[in-house]
């Protein structure tokens, strides 16, 4: 009997995903800006799903208010660019701003449990939205454009934004990947499986949750930064909308809560649905909501959980497997 982390498939796939990242980097050189803009949206969805899963799947924190950080990232970019900072530098700084602000918010929010945390975060997002509406310099309720982006030629602008999105995606995925594989990650997965048991074994649950919360603050801030760079216009009604949470919950629940690969799968699915039903419309949202609820009730570990369970497939290994014994027990993910 021995314990292994890597299987042949996972080695191939992990290496392969590095190749995919490089291949994606060449997208703006080949395709026109319409495709590039759509793929930027996909990367935004991947970041959001991964971050929401980091919170809910590993920290047990269901947030209905991550749009607070999306809004802070987006409005931070517009504000800093308005101060004369170069737009792409402003984007980086705004992401850091969202991450840094998540620290004081965590001090308060992480004291709350379950529904109190969920709605508490929602209220924080609403407060941020109301504060933006009070500020005429940020366009109040009617929205504001990122006019400083006009200094770039549209094709180049779209390409830069895409590369930035790709960079953020790789950054946050690898950060979470190595975080989950580290000794710290073992404690995170222990919290996911049973918070009270983990605490009784000496896992410092509070500080681990804070780590995830701040990571998600950075990640959702990055997504917000990319939203404004990709659309060049934001308004508080949409950027602070609870719809973002609906999308995140859909992607993670359908893809696989508490699995590493699942949210990526969920993001690709949502992207495919969005590109197929471009009109959106209420029936599409009815389907989204019903599917999310159904997965929560019937398939709590989502599609990836099923794939993993049935096929024993591990593409991006963050846990360990015991092989060689008669009972193929599994540890971790």
């Amino acid at each position, binding site marked *: 009997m021995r314990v292994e982390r890597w299987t042949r498939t996972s080695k191939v796939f992990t290496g392969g995903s590095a190749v995919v990242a490089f291949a994606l980097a060449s997208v703006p050189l080949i395709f026109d800006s319409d495709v590039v803009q759509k793929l930027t949206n996909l990367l935004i969805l991947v970041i959001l799903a991964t971050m929401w899963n980091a919170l809910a799947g590993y920290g047990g924190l269901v947030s209905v208010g991550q749009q607070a950080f999306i809004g802070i990232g987006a409005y931070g970019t517009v504000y800093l660019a308005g101060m004369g900072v170069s737009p792409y530098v402003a984007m980086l700084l705004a992401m850091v701003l969202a991450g840094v602000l998540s620290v004081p918010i965590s001090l308060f929010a992480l004291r*709350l449990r*379950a*529904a*109190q945390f969920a*709605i508490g975060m929602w209220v924080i997002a609403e407060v941020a939205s109301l504060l933006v509406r009070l500020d005429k310099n940020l366009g109040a309720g009617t929205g504001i454009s990122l006019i400083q982006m006009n200094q770039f030629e549209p094709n180049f602008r779209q390409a830069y934004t895409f590369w930035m999105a790709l960079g953020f995606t790789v950054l946050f995925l690898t950060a979470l990947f190595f975080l989950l594989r580290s000794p710290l990650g073992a404690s995170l997965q222990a919290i996911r499986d049973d918070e009270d048991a983990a605490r009784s074994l000496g896992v410092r649950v509070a500080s681990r949750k804070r780590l995830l919360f701040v990571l998600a603050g950075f990640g959702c801030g990055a997504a917000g930064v990319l939203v404004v760079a990709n659309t060049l216009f934001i308004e508080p009604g949409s950027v602070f909308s609870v719809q973002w949470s609906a999308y995140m919950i859909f992607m993670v629940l359908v893809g696989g809560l508490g699995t590493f690969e699942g949210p990526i799968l969920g993001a690709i699915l949502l992207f495919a649905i969005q590109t197929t039903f471009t009109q959106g419309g209420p029936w599409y949202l009815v389907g989204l*909501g019903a599917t*999310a609820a159904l997965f929560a009730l019937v398939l*709590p570990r989502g599609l990836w959980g099923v794939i993993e369970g049935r096929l024993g497939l591990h593409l991006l290994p963050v846990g360990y497997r015991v092989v060689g014994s008669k009972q193929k027990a599994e540890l971790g993910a």
Partner: protein
Amino acid sequence: MTLLNAIVQGIFLGAFYAVLACGLSIMFGVMRIINLAHGDIAVLGAYLAFVVVEHTGASAYVAFAAALPVMLALGYILQITILERSLKAGLLTPLLATFGLSIVIQNLLLIAFSPDVRSLGPAAGALTSASWHVTSELSFSALGMVVLAVAVVVFGALQLFLSRTRAGWAMRATAEDADAAELVGIDSRSVYARATAIAVAIAALGGLFLAIRSVFDPISGPTQLIFAFEAVVIGGMGSLWGTLLGGIALGLAQTLGAEIQPQFAVLAGHLLFLAVLIARFGGGRLSLRVAR
């Protein structure tokens, strides 16, 4: 005098929030779950009454009386189809499932009724316009007083139900310890279903008041949920009379905030809610530790 008027209006507004929050408080008290579709259910109740008014020309109150049994049945069905299953699946599943349900209800309402704003004010008769002007700046609206009276009656009736009836005892026993209640022969499934049915019916009453007081549309629900939840938390989760007081505190915060500047109304309510959470969970102690 405007301050006194703001306080009076705040109490009236707060009574409305308390009615909205009542069902949320019952469900949390009995099952320890928060129904994120609560606001949308309230709006659904308003639309049901609206449909009856449109088709029969009845007054809003008659229409609500007709919608009430439907809402009770819906609550019962909601419990046995979705919530019961989610309760078994852990702490987070009820949140996720009811959030999905909330999106479904909002968009089904959009499909059925278009995004137009509606009101039941015209169907509510003289109640919406009548008021008692004490001075030029202090007035008691008939609607405000009725809502306050109904709120007190609803909470009082629930108190009597829980303290005087066998079904109420069963509900309290189940809330205390469902397994132990099962041992003495209480069917927790039916207790839960009854609690949800009552909660949904009272949510619909909140929806009726929303529709009479002002306007509503298919996406009014989330805001109502947030206000209702704030009332529950401010009053202390799990305490029924606390919810009435919490609603009134929220209403006061909003009208007093609006006295400073109209845009501060909702913000002031949110800040009171966050302040109560910080005070209760001691966020301050932790920030000191980090500052060191």
